């Protein structure tokens, strides 16, 4: 491993956010190397297009740069904060796209494209390995959920639906959906606790 790779672990996510808040662009570069692939993954899953997903990642990091001074560690990890920004921007794009298609009455010609394989990621090789490992764990954890629990969680996270909207979409009582989300998230927490991005930094 190069010396660059070993110095990487010396700086915590929290220190990088503090650096970004103080105007240090290198801190943003380091955060991108750690989480750029994760943000791209969630953006791609939501928008289904490579170019749009990249646009989302650019916007998300620009927002993170602006909002870094307001980051509060007590409210969650840097990784959780960054991925939520990426998810929100991706959902914004999908909603804007739907609005545009409604307004101009053009059919959505946007077909999902095949993503580039993970191997193309050059940001941080050590990080890519971690992510590959985590990806397996996340799949395993999702497989422990009942299909309805998994469906509810995926509709919420990837389609941005509220529990009420999920209940409406699936024609199920709201209470049932709330229970599925709660129990499903509890199960995921049990399975994934050892694999959080930079836990307790």
């Amino acid at each position, binding site marked *: 491993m190069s010396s660059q790779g070993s110095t990487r672990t010396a700086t915590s996510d929290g220190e990088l956010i503090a650096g970004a808040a103080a105007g240090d662009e290198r801190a943003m570069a380091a955060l991108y190397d750690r989480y750029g692939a994760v943000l791209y993954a969630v953006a791609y899953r939501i928008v289904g297009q490579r170019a749009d997903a990249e646009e989302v990642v650019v916007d998300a990091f620009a927002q993170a740069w602006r909002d870094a001074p307001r980051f509060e560690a007590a409210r969650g990890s840097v990784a*959780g904060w960054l991925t939520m920004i990426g998810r*929100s*921007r991706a959902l914004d794009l999908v909603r804007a796209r739907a609005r545009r298609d409604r307004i101009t009455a053009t059919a959505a010609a946007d077909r999902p494209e095949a*993503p*580039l394989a993970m191997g193309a990621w050059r940001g941080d090789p050590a990080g890519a390995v971690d992510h590959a490992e985590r990806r397996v764990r996340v799949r395993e954890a999702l497989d422990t959920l009942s299909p309805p629990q998994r469906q509810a969680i995926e509709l919420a996270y990837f389609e941005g639906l509220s529990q009420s909207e999920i209940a409406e979409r699936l024609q199920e009582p709201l209470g049932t959906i709330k229970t599925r989300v709660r129990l499903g998230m509890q199960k995921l927490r049990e399975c994934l606790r050892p694999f*959080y991005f930079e836990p307790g930094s």
Partner: protein
Amino acid sequence: MSAAEHDSVRDLAAAYALGALSPEESREFEAYLASSPEAQREVAEYRDVAALLALAGPEAAPSEGLRDRVLGGVSRQKTVSIPRRNNPMAWGALAASLLAVVGLGLTLMSTRRQLADVRGRLDSTAQQLVLTDSMLVARDSTLFRIFEPGVELFQLTASGDPDPNIQLFWDRNLNRAILHGSRIRQLDPGKAYQLWFIKDGTPLPSVTFKPEPTGHVKVEPIEVPSGTGISAAAVTIEPEAGSKQPTMPIVMVGSLKKS
């Protein structure tokens, strides 16, 4: 709060971290969250769980050029710090626009006072003052037109990009509109933004415009096609001379239906 209610609120931590609460539910939960360190810890952990869900999709990696684009995007806005827009947009955006208009008015008033002071003291800058004054008069007339009864405000937004913002003040009585934009990206030479009115599903060409170096833009007056059937306004990037039909994808769009 009863024990049962307390439980039900606490149970929302997972849904909140997942982003599965409606805006109203989120606000209620946040009020509770502020008073409960235990719930804060719970939410923080569920956010870690939610973050991992990012990896639940198909295996995907961005292109190699993305790093430079991300860092370019960061550098470009190094000097500006912009408050975030709230997501449940309609009311927030409307309130923000009204505040901006009121702010413009206040700025105008205080600028006027300063202007009067300076005028008394410095004859040598008279020429520049005339210039400033005419700008203020122009702004003033814009303000009056915006405040005219019957003028409605519409927002145009960009897909996936929170920054550029265009407000269209539409006076239905006169079929006139004023366009005011901020944080609009600069374009390559030879290109301009073009406004379109969507009438009965067909885009009708309107004015072209370019942002000032500050990213601001103001265009007035704009003729709005008369009659009913105007459902939306959109902005595309076109050759400087403008186009009869949109040749490029829509970069910003907004509904013009009465809310």
